């Protein structure tokens, strides 16, 4: 079943902060893409081709300048980036509550899931420390754990799993596979070809804001590797 449909979408950013500049930098141009429930979709492409912007548009964080993005009504989506949306001066535990609320959970539900979230993130007593003292890997583990336990229909992961250690990457890959079996959909932006081959059902290759290829991971990633070489 289709859960997201992207139709002729374009997105640009102001080229500078200057009040006198009207220049814009196009990052996505007339992009079309459909996402089906229960799939793991990998997105690959060079830096700056619009992968993160695409995820943020699907999450509803950014609105397209042109075209439409249709989402299944009541779709619960979660975006996880390398720089988590945590508040640095708050502790890990306080950020769990804040992030849970921002993801649409209520305080009681966050409280019920708190132990599971902390156990999964496996960051020990650091959960009571300010997030400012966390490494990027620890932040990603915590962000991934909260997102996982918010029971999303759609996980949007932007390079976030690449910064975790080997054990966490193995654990997160397994969780993603379990979630697919349970009908959760994930869209994963990553430069790690092997990781995408392992967890994705299909891969989308984006260049200059357009979809270049879309299909089975092995075929698309092979072509991408050849083009990059």
């Amino acid at each position, binding site marked *: 079943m289709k859960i997201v449909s992207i139709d002729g979408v374009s997105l640009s950013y*102001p080229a500078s*902060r200057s009040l006198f500049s009207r220049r814009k930098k196009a990052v996505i141009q007339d992009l079309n893409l459909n996402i089906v429930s229960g799939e793991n979709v990998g997105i690959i492409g060079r830096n700056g081709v619009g992968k993160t912007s695409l995820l943020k548009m699907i999450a509803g*964080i950014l609105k397209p300048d042109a075209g439409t993005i249709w989402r299944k009504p009541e*779709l619960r*989506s979660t*975006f996880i980036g390398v720089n988590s949306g945590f508040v640095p001066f708050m502790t890990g535990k*306080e950020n769990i509550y*804040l992030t849970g*609320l*921002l993801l649409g959970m209520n305080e009681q539900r966050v409280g019920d899931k708190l132990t599971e979230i902390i156990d999964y993130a496996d960051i020990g007593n650091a959960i009571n420390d300010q997030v400012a003292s966390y490494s990027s890997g620890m932040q990603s583990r915590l962000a991934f754990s909260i997102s996982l336990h918010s029971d999303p229909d759609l996980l949007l992961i932007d390079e976030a799993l690449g910064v975790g250690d080997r054990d966490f990457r193995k654990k997160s890959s397994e969780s993603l596979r379990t979630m697919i079996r349970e009908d959760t959909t994930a869209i994963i932006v990553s430069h790690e070809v092997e990781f995408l081959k392992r967890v994705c059902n299909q891969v989308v290759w984006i260049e200059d804001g357009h979809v270049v290829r879309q299909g089975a991971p092995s075929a698309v990633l092979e072509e991408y590797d050849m083009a990059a070489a």
Partner: protein
Amino acid sequence: MSRVSYPSLLKYLVVADFKSDINRYFLGFFWWLAEPLMYVAVFYIAFSHFRSDDEQYIYFLIVGVTTWRWLATSINLATNSIVTKKRIIGHFSINPAIFTLSSLVTQILKYLVILVFVCALLQLSGQLKFAGIQSLLFWIVCTLSCVLAFSLLVAFLVAYIPDLRVPISQALMLLMFISGVIFPIDGVSEELRAALQFNPFVHIIEGVRFVLMGESQGSLPVIELSAVFLLSLMLLVGIAIASSSLATDIPKRVLL
């Protein structure tokens, strides 16, 4: 997209603000009271000799300065309320106005604590001449609508044009001197007094003095405060209408 419960989020952000305030300083919430009172002390030392014949001057200053500090701090903090939350705005689909609102609610709660202290002080010195609940409620509605409208306006403006932070802060300092905080505006020339009628903060400061200290401080500026309320309401409606396109643009702006 998830449906965020804004009341729960607001409550959480306000509690987090208080916790951070208490943890940030050695003396924690003692500073809520100490800071405005230190301002009063500074102004009293600097300006009381110009008002040596006015025995009520210290109480005039206490009510004016504590109220002004609340107004100015609320608007000053609002300027940064959206841009400092860019990490959250870049990760979640959320209306950025919630951060301005939470900053404002935190300041209102702090002001309530200060107001209770000021009332106790006025009562002890026999200066408390409460003008009645109707006047208080009228003043609260007009003042809150004004401070909310200004806070949202500066928060959105600074999200677009960060350079405005400094002029806004300087404009607030200028406003303090022309809002009757330190001297009553009766003492200025007729022309200047006529011009100052367009400054909403003059009426807010005059209003709070009347509500707490009664007719010794003039009368409640009903017409002027009503005008402040109506103009604030119009500004809020304008911001609400513009907010759908602002919500589209602000994440792009703050993430630049």
